[in-house]
């Protein structure tokens, strides 16, 4: 009987506790429920399509997986091979670093120049802003990569223009010495989004600083060097980090322009393209997953390095 009573008490206690808990949940739900409901599509996407596959790929990176049969655990063999016995990994690394080192500074410089021009108060600013942003919207597309092939081929538009000056250009896009440059130009051409951010940054610099500098007799160049640039460093920093990550991840242009081969002679073998070839061309999803995690590591290191050095050159206005 005692036990029955005990349990009755327990039930009773529970019955008392439950409305409180229910009330807490209900009030939490009433407060945040709608918000989470609105977030639901994103949450499903994030957990189902980003985080889940990322965790799966971490597991797969320690396996040999041919996409069809079940993965086989191989320990660190994939990582060991990447580090010691894969000449194509080295080639892809070299191409990717070259691309990052070339495309990011050129793109940012160009974007800053255009932003400075537009900041001087051009008539129809909104129009130009939209116009210059357009390539960024198109740039990642297959159509543009195909267009690029047409422009830089042996009998393409670029060579027709050069011919006017008596220069006989090679087929830029399919020559190992130049092909990477056509991809760099393609990247620089998409200067729109860093430009917009630069423009916003420039707008935030108080004009009285320039007025004071003018009164003190500082030249335009000195003003740029002493006022604009230092005050813009947070924006430059932001753009540099974002563009660097983007450049490491670039895939479409090289894929389309080289027809998926990364050629000629691996000169456009972006890291992501090599990863893709291994995964889907050569049925080595485990190895490709390991490659992907190496890329995550490299991008992470780069970003960490940027943040660590940032305090020496980025000036926050506070």
């Amino acid at each position, binding site marked *: 009987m005692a036990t029955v009573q005990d349990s009755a008490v327990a039930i009773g206690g529970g019955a008392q506790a439950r409305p409180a808990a229910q009330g807490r949940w209900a009030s939490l739900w009433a407060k945040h429920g709608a918000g989470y409901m609105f977030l639901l599509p994103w949450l499903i996407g994030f957990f189902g399509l980003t985080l889940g596959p990322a965790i799966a790929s971490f597991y797969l990176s320690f396996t040999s997986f041919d996409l*069809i049969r079940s993965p086989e655990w191989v320990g660190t063999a994939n990582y060991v091979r990447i580090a010691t016995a894969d000449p194509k990994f080295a080639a892809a690394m070299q191409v990717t670093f070259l691309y990052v080192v070339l495309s990011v500074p050129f793109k940012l410089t160009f974007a800053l120049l255009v932003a400075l021009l537009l900041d001087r108060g051009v008539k129809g600013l909104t129009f130009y802003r939209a116009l210059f942003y357009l390539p960024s919207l198109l740039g990642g597309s297959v159509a543009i990569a195909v267009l690029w092939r047409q422009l830089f081929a042996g009998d393409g538009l670029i060579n027709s223009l050069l011919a006017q000056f008596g220069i006989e250009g090679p087929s830029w896009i399919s020559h190992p010495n130049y092909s990477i440059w056509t991809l760099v130009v393609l990247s620089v051409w998409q200067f729109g989004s860093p430009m917009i951010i630069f423009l916003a940054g420039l707008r935030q610099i108080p004009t009285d600083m320039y007025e004071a500098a003018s009164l003190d007799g500082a030249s335009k160049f000195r003003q740029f060097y002493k006022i604009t640039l230092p005050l813009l460093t947070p924006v430059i920093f932001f753009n540099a980090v974002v563009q660097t990550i983007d450049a490491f991840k670039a895939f479409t242009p090289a894929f389309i322009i080289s027809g998926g081969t990364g050629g000629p002679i691996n000169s456009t073998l972006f890291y992501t393209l090599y990863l893709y070839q291994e995964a889907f061309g050569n049925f080595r999803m485990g190895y490709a997953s390991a490659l992907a995690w190496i890329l995550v590591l490299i991008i992470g290191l780069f970003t960490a390095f940027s943040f660590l050095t940032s305090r020496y050159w980025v000036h926050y206005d506070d």
Partner: protein
Amino acid sequence: MTHRISRRTVLAGGAALLSYAAFAPRAFSQEARLRLLWWGSQTRADRTNKVSELFKKANPGVDINGEFLGWSDYWPRLATQVAGGNAPDVIQMDYRYIVEYARRGALAPLDSYLGSVLKVEDFDEVQIKGGSVDGKLYGISLGANSTAMMVNTVAFEEAGVDLPTPSTTWEELARMGVEITKAGKRKGYYGLSDGSGVEPLLENWLRQRGKALFTADGKIAYDANDGAEWFAMWQKMREDKACVPADIQALDQFNIETSPLSLGNAATSYAHSNQLVGYQAINKDKIVLKSHALISKDAKGGHYRKPSMFFSVSAKSSDPELGAKYVNFFVKDPEAAKILGVERGVPESASVREALAPSLDELGRAALDYVSGLGALAGDLPPPPPSGAGEAELALRSVAEQVAFGQLDAKQGGETLVNEVTQILSRG
């Protein structure tokens, strides 16, 4: 606690419903459904879809959903679908990949349907064997083809050069190339495409020397000397301007559209006989098929008739018998054969070939005559390529480019090629 239905609740519920709708599986239809996947051009797609319509008419209640991609996009797509357990029921398969897919258990063995659903008794024995892996049948050949040289007759004529013949040697072909380049009738035009990175062409040349690409047990079947001689032959042709320079050749993505012939840079290209239809569709000048050049006047040819492609049925198909039925319709129905022509190769069934012959157009006729007229130039079908053959093909292309752009000499090229291919094959 009162529960008021506020505007916010309704909105939230609506959002949830919408997201559910977006992720909910589509309602299944009651009809039997077949999904097809193939690679190829628009021409091929039109013909395939017409046959599917015909099959639907003959089999009411069957719904067919066909999808096609270009060669290089096809394999990643197929691999992902198979990996995702979402493979199409009927899969177009290539000789290069059939071992890979069959051994991994992605394809359904078709032996049990032979004689009942699949009526391929009048197929060439060798071609049936071509679709077998480890003694089981995994693919039904959709037609026979052979490698061939596509030749732009107008460009040859303009330059006053006679067309190559079945007994033309590589030396003679190189001279033809030089003459066409020299004639300079077209801007930026050369006699030949650079075939040093084209694997079927290397294979043809190796077979004439009594060698092959791969042994039956999946090892490399030629040595560094063969490779060096091959690259040296092309190096000389590049120097003499018999063929296009390296940067022009590198535009070729090994499809019809980007070959130097189609881009208007050269008078020849190296492809497969069934592709004549596709080549002619995008080239204004008349294109003809010629067999590959010989290493010497008394050499035996290196050609062979091979199944140009197969239809396989997925191991995961919910209705493999229906898949097999579709495949049989595709290769045996006379009406279907008339629609398909020889675009996927010369039909394997003798009765279909007969039924087809009168209705063939000039191009189809030419492709058929080419394959059946190879005679002594054609030898035995080599064993199916081992796993890693796709990667080995890319390696050949890359090394050929390194030689063409002067990063390696011919001798180094031969050594590098053999090393890389050996390594790829041992890795599997």
